[in-house]
């Protein structure tokens, strides 16, 4: 009972603070006389949805790029981590390479991807993927390794198979690490998709932002940023939900 009212109060505060910012924004802009093309009011921002900018289509395109790149990154990142863990020789060879790859600012690869795969949704998915798969790979790889050697000794006495050790100890132990990497990757995937759209594209919210920039429709640019943020928030929420379903509540202690 007490817990529930505490949580409710916390959420109430979060909502309240956000509302306050919106209200301050509205009145601040109205009374300060800042021109609309520099700083639109929240009202104007919402009203921009009425313009014929293909909001729904562009939002779905960007969402598809973000989700596509992200899912690809999870599949490839987790698979590579498993392969590295199972075949030490591959890990020894490939890991230094991965670390170096990690140092490259992936945004800088955007123009190259466009050259290689031409522009469009597919290459934006690849940019989103390339920017966010390394944190997933690296955290999962580390999580699989994070097993106390004494615990390994304990199950070795019992002649535990490689598979048993993997399924009962390594894999469940690595999940909190994986999810911490997956949370970091959400923001990166969104950034990757938008960068792709900035560089070259014919649709998506990033493309739309460049279009309305020309006409100084700042309100629409604000709206686009809000929708991009919303895509990220939804993906983040889904990851949290997945974490809750798979790892459960007892994961709250674990952080990397």
């Amino acid at each position, binding site marked *: 009972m007490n817990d529930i009212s505490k949580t409710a109060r916390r959420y109430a505060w979060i909502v309240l603070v956000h509302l306050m910012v919106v209200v301050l924004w509205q009145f601040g802009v109205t009374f300060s006389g800042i021109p609309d093309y520099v700083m639109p009011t929240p009202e104007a921002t919402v009203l921009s949805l009425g313009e014929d900018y293909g909001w729904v289509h562009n939002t779905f395109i960007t969402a598809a790029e973000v989700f596509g790149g992200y899912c690809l990154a999870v599949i490839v990142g987790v698979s590579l981590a498993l392969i590295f863990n199972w075949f030490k020789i591959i890990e020894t060879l490939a890991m230094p390479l991965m670390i170096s790859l990690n140092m490259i600012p992936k945004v800088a690869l955007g123009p190259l991807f466009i050259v290689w795969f031409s522009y469009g949704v597919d290459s934006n998915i690849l940019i989103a993927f390339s920017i966010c798969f390394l944190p997933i790979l690296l955290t999962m790889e580390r999580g699989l390794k994070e097993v*106390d050697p004494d615990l390994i*000794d304990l*199950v*070795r*006495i*019992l002649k*535990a198979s490689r598979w048993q050790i993997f399924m009962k100890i390594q894999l469940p*132990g690595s999940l909190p690490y994986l999810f911490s990497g997956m949370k970091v990757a959400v923001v990166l995937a969104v950034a990757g998709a938008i960068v792709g759209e900035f560089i070259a594209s014919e649709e998506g919210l990033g493309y739309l932002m460049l279009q309305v920039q020309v006409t100084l429709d700042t309100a629409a640019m604000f709206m686009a940023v809000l929708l991009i943020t919303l895509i990220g928030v939804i993906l983040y929420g889904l990851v949290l939900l997945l974490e809750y379903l798979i790892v*459960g509540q*007892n994961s709250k202690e674990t952080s990397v």
Partner: protein
Amino acid sequence: MSEPFIKLSGVRKTYKTRGQEFLAVSEVTFDVNIGELISIVGPSGCGKTTVLKILAGIHSHEEGTVSIGNDTNPFDPTKDIGMVFQQPLLLKWRRILENVLLPAEILGLPLKESRERAQYLLKMVGLEGFEKKFPDELSGGMQQRTAIARALIHDPKLILMDEPFGALDALTREKMNLELLRIWKESQKTILFVTHGIQEAVFLGNRVIVLTSGPARMADNIAIDLPYPRLLEIKTHESFGSYTRHIYKHLDME
């Protein structure tokens, strides 16, 4: 008296790391009868863990013989060892009962019987009612009790304990010592208890094996003639004091 359950004779072990050889254990010789509680005491780094790991079959040794089991008590190295370390090493995503069940799962023992046994063992170590908790929700002492129950789940003949109470505070440790004596009596297991605490070694063991460092050598093998059940006040007895003084001398001289 029948043949001893464990016989170690002239055991020697060197570790090789980066071309360097390091003699960790040399000429360790002792016997253990079934049902004994033997303390192995010695300073840090003297090779106590190494001796246990050789007994557990995790480490090899290059000289001497190790044999476990006799005609009346056959020994299966896979199923007859329960191990407890300084850290409880519980899986934090598993509930207490499921943690205790881990060895049973690995050995493929029948699940229903194992669950019943786990329940019984948790009761024995004083954790009745905590079956559904997660390890984070338990104190260090309670986690170590869980580890002890886990070591007993497959009903092994031999329990190897490597400084199991070393990470606990002094009071909890004394309490766990009493508990261990009770568990030993109830389960009738053969226990090898490694510690660097001389008092703890004398209090628990019906015999104490003293190892001195660099490399681990047997300094002594003393029968502790104090009657069980032992209560904490025996630590103030004259004979308890003379046992501990005797061991201190061994460890100070080298």
